[in-house]
């Protein structure tokens, strides 16, 4: 078993009020020097069997058609090494 992580972020040009709300709170909490915050979603997929090219291609399709709405969001797919190492 291995873990594949899909990160979904709003496209850079799209307003992210949640991220902005976080950023506005930072000075109040004493955190300086952070110029921008954007909030996204992380999906952890536990994959049965080997994570080969074909499996990654399928997950890529899944992310593109379902986990992300590519009209407004970008996504990245990666295999999580930690999960591999822990096996």
């Amino acid at each position: 078993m291995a873990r594949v992580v899909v990160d979904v972020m709003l496209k850079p040009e799209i307003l992210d009020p949640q991220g902005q709300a976080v950023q506005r709170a930072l000075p109040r909490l004493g955190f300086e020097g952070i110029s921008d915050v954007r909030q996204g979603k992380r999906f952890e997929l536990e994959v049965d069997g080997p994570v080969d090219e074909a499996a990654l291609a399928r997950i890529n399709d899944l992310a593109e058609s379902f986990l992300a709405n590519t009209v407004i969001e970008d996504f990245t797919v990666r295999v999580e090494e930690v999960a591999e190492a822990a096996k």
Partner: protein
Amino acid sequence: MTARIGVVTFPGSLDDRDTQRAIRVAGAEPVALWHKDKDLKQVDAVVLCGGFSYGDYLRAGAIARFSPVMDTVIDQAKAGLPVLGICNGFQILTEAHLLPGGMLGNDHLHFICRDQKLRVENADTAWTTDYEAGQEIHIPLKNMDGRYVADQRTLDELEAEGRVAFRYVDFNPNGSLNDIAGITNEAGNVVGLMPHPEHAVESLIGTGRTDGLPFFTSILKKLVNA
């Protein structure tokens, strides 16, 4: 003769019974459709109503878009079946790419429920012929994810082709680009909007206005005269 208008119930749909009532008030026959059935029971038009389908836990409308009933709705909408998406229904239509753009959380991060002023920008769609272009109406609005977004090219296209069907007036309640409250596809058979016309069909209920009724009388006339 009257028209049969289907209302899809997804798990988490909230305004299905209200929408059926609005269809009845307009004089058409409401037909309940179920998300697990591909069968549209030969209805003449379909309304995707408001609510939080499947909890909207991925993105508003994102899971509903892949339900069996939507397979048929998408096919038939492309072939000309009139489809109206209200609130969550609008979100589903964008997720299904029957309408361009997408819906995001309100810019103020709160749910908002209010009597919203709109301008009818396009009175030629299947669902808007009983309005006049430029007419200002009040329709209840209630949503969490009502911010319409699209890239500049899409926005320019929508504006150039007169496909912005409704625009917020006086107050933009969610940060929608170009104050867009609702849009139509090129053919005018698929319309989606965030405000809830089904909640504005009886003078005693809600805000006490009936400004939403023409949605349902428009489609009835079109279907009966067809």
